[in-house]
Every structure is written in structure tokens, then in C-alpha cells.
């Protein structure tokens, strides 16, 4: 597109170049109309390539017209084209470098659970939205079945260990170490009742003067679920029934 200008002259910049700006403007407007109408046609006919070409192909053509004829890059010294091209290439290297991680949600030895869950949640929400076709409340989709045991296993066990003995992998480096719920000495303090356990899970241990390393998890649970998790924690007591 760029080199087709009949007045192309590498050194002619300051001498003035006779671009017919109005003609370029009219071409841009025509291309703009195609880029609006094209995708409509693409959608109506179900031919996705029409949408892609008219939307993005034409954007590239329009951008080149503006860059070459309005910004006069076609007449600019060659070094500036190289500077801009370098910038563009570096950007494309960055984007393509991270593209496998962003665009795929699983690979040979990894899986992006969060992204997959997000896609599922979003699609379910979109389906629900389409059904109701009204101003449906954007409610958060909660996993149907809640179990205190599995929640403890996923979240608490990281530090407190699956068996509640304070021997989770992530807890090894913590100081003070994570509480050991199987230790009678831990429960010897009469203040450690059910309400206190609920408070610590909801607001973090710092809320009762304990270590800030025990983070608040209240945002994850309903009040009822908090009670269930607390009961599960209490079940590690050596003297529990």
C-alpha cells in the first residue's frame, strides 16, 4: 500500500508532496463503512472469515493509509521506519512469547484451573443470561455441593496438614508454626471454643491476638459453611467424640 504513491520521494519531505488528502479521506471513509457492514454480513451468513477480513484486514489497510499519507512516514528518513519497526517487532515478540500461557489453559504438565473455571462460570452465566433475557442479577455461581472436609483439604491443609497436625507443606517455613489441632495442649486453653474457631477462620488469628500468618478466610464462606469448617477443625481434638 505504502510504496504505491506516485510521488514517493525519500528526500522530498520538506519540498512538499502532493498527496490528495481529500481522496485519502474518502477512501478511509469507504473502508470504514465496509468495516462496519462487512461483519454484519459475516454474522448474517455465518461466514466468520468475512468478519475477520473486513474488521481486522481493513483496520490494517486504514492504519497504513493514515501512517503513510497523513503522518508522511512514506517520505520519512529510512532510520525512523527502522526504529518504529524495531518497536513493533519487540512488541510482537513479547506478545507471542506469552501467548502459549495466555491462550492455552492446559499443556503437557500443567493446567490453568482458574482460567478453566472462569470459562465455565462465564459460559454458564451467559447461558443463564440468554434464557432470562432480562436484567438478571449478576450473581456469583457457587459450586453446588459444599463439604467442610474438602474445603479444609483444599485451603487449610496447605499449612495445617490434611490430618490437622500442623504439618502442611506450606506451613513448614512459618514462624510461629501453624496450629496443631491434634495436640491436647492446643485445646487446653478454655478460650478456644467453637465461637473462637469461627472467628479465627473468618477474621484471621490476628483478630484474637494471634499470628497474622493465619489469614482471614471469611470471604470464601457463608456463615453456615464457617460453622461446618469450624466443626471439622474441632473434630481433630484428641478428646473429640
Amino acid at each position, binding site marked *: 500500500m505504502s510504496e504505491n504513491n506516485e510521488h514517493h520521494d525519500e528526500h522530498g519531505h520538506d519540498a512538499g508532496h502532493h498527496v490528495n*488528502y481529500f481522496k485519502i479521506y474518502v477512501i478511509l471513509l469507504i473502508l470504514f463503512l465496509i468495516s462496519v457492514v462487512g461483519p454484519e454480513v459475516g454474522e448474517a451468513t455465518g461466514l466468520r472469515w468475512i468478519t475477520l477480513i473486513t474488521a481486522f484486514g481493513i*483496520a490494517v489497510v486504514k492504519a497504513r493509509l*493514515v501512517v503513510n499519507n497523513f503522518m508522511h512516514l512514506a517520505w520519512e*528518513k529510512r532510520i525512523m521506519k527502522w526504529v*518504529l519497526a524495531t518497536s513493533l517487532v519487540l512488541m510482537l515478540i513479547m506478545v507471542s512469547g506469552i501467548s502459549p500461557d495466555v*491462550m492455552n489453559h492446559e499443556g503437557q504438565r500443567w493446567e490453568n484451573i482458574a482460567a478453566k473455571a472462569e470459562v465455565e462460570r*462465564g459460559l454458564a452465566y451467559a447461558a443463564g443470561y440468554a434464557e432470562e433475557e432480562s436484567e438478571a442479577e449478576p450473581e456469583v455461581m457457587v459450586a453446588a455441593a459444599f463439604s467442610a472436609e474438602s474445603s479444609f483439604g483444599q485451603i487449610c491443609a496447605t499449612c495445617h496438614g490434611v490430618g490437622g497436625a500442623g504439618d502442611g507443606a506450606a506451613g513448614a517455613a512459618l514462624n510461629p508454626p501453624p496450629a496443631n489441632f491434634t495436640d491436647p495442649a492446643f485445646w487446653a486453653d478454655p478460650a478456644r471454643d467453637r465461637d473462637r474457631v469461627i472467628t479465627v477462620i473468618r477474621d484471621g488469628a490476628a483478630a484474637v491476638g494471634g499470628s497474622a500468618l493465619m489469614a482471614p478466610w471469611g470471604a470464601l464462606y457463608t456463615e453456615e459453611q464457617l460453622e461446618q469448617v469450624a466443626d471439622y477443625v474441632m473434630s481433630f481434638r484428641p478428646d473429640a467424640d
Partner: protein
Amino acid sequence: MAHARPIATTRSATGIPTPRLAVWWILASEVVIFGGLLGVYLMHRIGHPEWAEAASHTQTWIGAINTFVLLTSSFTCVLAHQAAEKGNGKEAAKLLGFTILGALMFLMIKSYEWTTEILAGYTITSNTFWSFYYTAAGLHALHVIAGAIIMGFVAVDAFRGRELHRVEIIGIYWHFVDVVWIFLFPLLYIAK
């Protein structure tokens, strides 16, 4: 020598006038800023089919009107450059005025658009699509605002016949802002 000009404005190893060299360097960095943002958006868009639902709520006709407004403002801006090259500062200032008018129209339309969307509950924290939408369009709008302000100063000077070469410099920047929108339009409004 009391009024000697700083060396930076008179020296040019590339043969390109320093102000123009400077604006090209700015744009080279802008390519990375906008390119990176839009590239990452595009990858997420492809990796997340559920974004189609969110994207279907953008208002194509508003985006289209704004595309028309920016294209037209680019046209008046390049005409201003043409007038400045002929030494006609008053004409250049008038045409820059039209360009600023275009910038203001663009911003007013964008304000209306964002207001309707925010009132409908689509905010920057709604989901990742809307985060990208407001970030990309917002960053672009900041460039429109900056360009319009600088253009005001250039136009006032040009009207008095001073620093006419600056008309070209702000023009190059303005066309770049137009080019960014040329890509934002299909990315945010058309591909659904």
C-alpha cells in the same frame, strides 16, 4: 549570543528535524504500550469464549460514530499541516480548531457511552473483558485529551504565525491516536 538556542533543537545526526525525531520516538514507545495491551487483550479474547457475551453489550453504533469523528479530525489535522507548510498560520489554526472540536466530540460521545454502560452495571471490575475495555479505551481517551490540550497551544501560536513547524509535529501524534482507535474499534466493538 544572548539568545543562543539550545543545541538539541539545531543539531540532527539523522537529518530529521529534532522535534519530529522526538515525536517519532514517543510513538515508537506508544507502539509497545498500546500494542502490548491490545495484544494481551486479543489473546485473552481468543482463550476465553465466554467473553463473547460481555462483548455483545458494547454499543457498535457509538464506536462507529466515534471512528468517523476521529477519521474526520485526522483529515482536518493534515489539512492544517498543509496550510502551515504554505505559511498560512491563521488557516492552520482554524483547521486545528476543527480538530480540537473533533476531539471534544469524541470525548463527549465516549462520556455518554460510558455513562450508559456504567449505569447498566458494566464497570471496570465486572469481569476481565470490561477491565480491558475500560483500560484500553481509557488510555486512548487520555491520549485524546493530551493531544487536544497540546493542539490548543500549537493553534494559538500558529494563529500568530509562530512556530508553524509544530503543526506537523502535533499532527503526527494526532494521527497515531487515530490509528490506535482504528484498531480498538474492531477489537472492542466489531468482533463479537
